[in-house]
């Protein structure tokens, strides 16, 4: 790995990379990605790992938001052709330098990592972490969780995702533990998960509930030795599934972990002693102070003060942690709304019990949690903007047996007939990654509105739930 990093620092020096430059990384979940990341950090640059499934339109928006100087691509011609001339394209395999590692130029307060999440206004929302905030996260995890259980860690999650990258991969690996990484969400690998654990003597893995729903159905458990510890996070973990994972993995140490990209992911979990799995149970903080307040955000804090709820009383979850992001890239307006003097408004509702353990009770912000991937409905709405014939759209969460939630869409249109629906689908497909496209569609005469005339997503969801969705397959295939 040292040689691989040195080869890349030599290449970057040759290409004129400077401290503070932002670099897009288009493909993760492989050794070369981690070598690239360490090389960039060594030279004081900021890495921006991206979902390789982005559409051209989404990629153009990210370029506009992040102004990267370089973009590391593999053999994907499509990605390279979508980038403007201002972004220099570097081949992932172009790393033939040799020599020693240069001095470490990473300043603790400098930007190290930007992870884009779904923006509530439809504009990209980049979470910026510094070297200091990332190191604070890893130090806190090491202090609260130790390293022994993570000796041979498996990562099945995508590395453009805070949970997969910062915690599942970098926390153990940078502390000297062995990391085994697979392409994300591959059913053939999940089907032989037990064998994979046996073969590589895996002691730990983290994942999301949707992956466990599949693995418990199709994979035989490990035979040689049980896992030492399992984390599950990024989406609600029902108690029945939690028990199922305990049975399959052979360990009681299955921790429901809570974290947000803004906190460097894992910030709390069930590590503080015996517990019985229960819906919403999170547990004790890891390197953070958790407060449940009456105020929901910065405006609420100004109006209501810092008043905290009593144990057992539901309120808004706030976190203070040295691992907190620096802010949202170029979006001081959004940052000011959720970050006040180091106190972060998570957007989650919860309670603290007498032990100080967190229990989540729901989420107050508009957000669709599709198997751990958070999708802002406004981003889906924005992808329909400008489509001829469309009067109004409204995206909302629908229950999904596989992912927990999925994307539903109601649409009002100026013209009759299926053709307009097909046109809207194709329009959105060009502007939105396939994973965010609505799975169920309804055509409505008018959007339900609140007294103030605003479209109410809850009311739209209720109106649509009363009738079957459109048969989109029939519409698109002209049957």
């Amino acid at each position: 790995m040292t040689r691989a990093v040195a080869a890349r620092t030599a290449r970057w020096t040759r290409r004129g990379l400077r401290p503070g430059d932002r670099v897009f990384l288009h493909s993760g979940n492989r050794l070369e990605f981690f070598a690239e990341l360490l090389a960039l950090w060594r030279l004081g640059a900021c890495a921006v790992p991206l979902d390789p499934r982005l559409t051209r339109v989404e990629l153009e928006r990210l370029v506009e938001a992040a102004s990267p100087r370089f973009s590391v691509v593999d053999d994907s011609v499509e990605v390279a052709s979508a980038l403007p001339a201002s972004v220099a394209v570097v081949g992932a395999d172009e790393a033939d330098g040799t020599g020693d590692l240069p001095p470490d130029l990473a300043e603790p307060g400098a930007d190290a990592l930007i992870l884009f999440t779904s923006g509530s206004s439809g504009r990209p929302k980049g979470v910026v972490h510094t070297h200091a905030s990332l190191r604070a996260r890893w130090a806190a995890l090491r202090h609260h969780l130790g390293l022994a259980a993570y000796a041979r860690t498996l990562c099945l999650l995508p590395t453009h995702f805070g949970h997969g990258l910062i915690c599942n991969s970098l926390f153990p690996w940078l502390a000297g533990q062995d990391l085994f990484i697979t392409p994300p969400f591959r059913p053939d690998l999940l089907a032989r998960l037990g064998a994979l654990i046996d073969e590589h003597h895996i002691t730990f893995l983290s994942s999301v509930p949707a992956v466990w729903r599949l693995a418990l159905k199709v994979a035989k458990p490990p035979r040689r030795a049980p896992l030492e510890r399992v984390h599950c996070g990024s989406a609600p973990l029902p108690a029945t599934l939690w028990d199922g994972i305990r049975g399959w993995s052979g360990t009681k140490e299955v921790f429901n972990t809570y974290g947000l990209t803004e906190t460097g992911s894992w910030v709390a979990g069930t590590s503080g002693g015996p517990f019985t799995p229960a819906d919403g149970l999170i547990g004790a903080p890891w390197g953070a102070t958790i407060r449940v307040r009456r105020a929901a955000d910065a405006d609420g804090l100004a109006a209501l003060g810092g008043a905290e709820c009593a144990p057992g009383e539901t309120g808004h979850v706030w976190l203070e942690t040295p691992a907190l992001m620096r802010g949202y890239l170029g979006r001081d307006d959004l940052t000011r709304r959720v970050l006040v003097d180091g106190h972060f408004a998570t957007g989650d509702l919860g309670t603290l019990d007498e032990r100080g353990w967190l229990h989540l009770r729901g989420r107050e912000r508009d957000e669709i949690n599709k198997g751990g991937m958070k999708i802002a409905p406004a981003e889906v709405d924005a992808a329909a903007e400008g489509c001829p014939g469309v009067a109004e759209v409204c995206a909302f969460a629908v229950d999904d047996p596989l992912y927990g939630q999925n994307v539903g869409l109601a649409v009002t249109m100026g013209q009759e007939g299926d053709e307009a629906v097909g046109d809207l689908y194709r329009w959105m497909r060009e502007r939105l990654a396939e994973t965010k496209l609505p799975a169920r569609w309804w055509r409505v005469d008018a959007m339900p509105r609140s007294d103030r005339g605003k479209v109410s997503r809850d009311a739209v969801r209720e109106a649509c739930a009363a009738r079957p969705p459109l048969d989109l397959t029939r519409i698109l295939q002209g049957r």
Partner: protein
Amino acid sequence: MREAHRARVLDFLRTIQKPDRPLEAVAESDSLVEAGLIDSLALLEIVAFLEEQYRIDFAETGLEPDQLTSVSGILDLIEREARA
């Protein structure tokens, strides 16, 4: 009998497939995921369908990775389980 199973499996796949990909364009031995017809995690829905409609218990039998990735793989599995 295989024809009847095929019709039933194809009807089911139409309910979970991505809407703009014609099922007919995917060869019977092609991987449904690699052909872009279904999402990789949709495998769980195929498992649930086989458990419910054909009483196949995957906890008992386990699953070979390639069994459910193509229409022919699914039909072979149904026939094998019917004989067992």
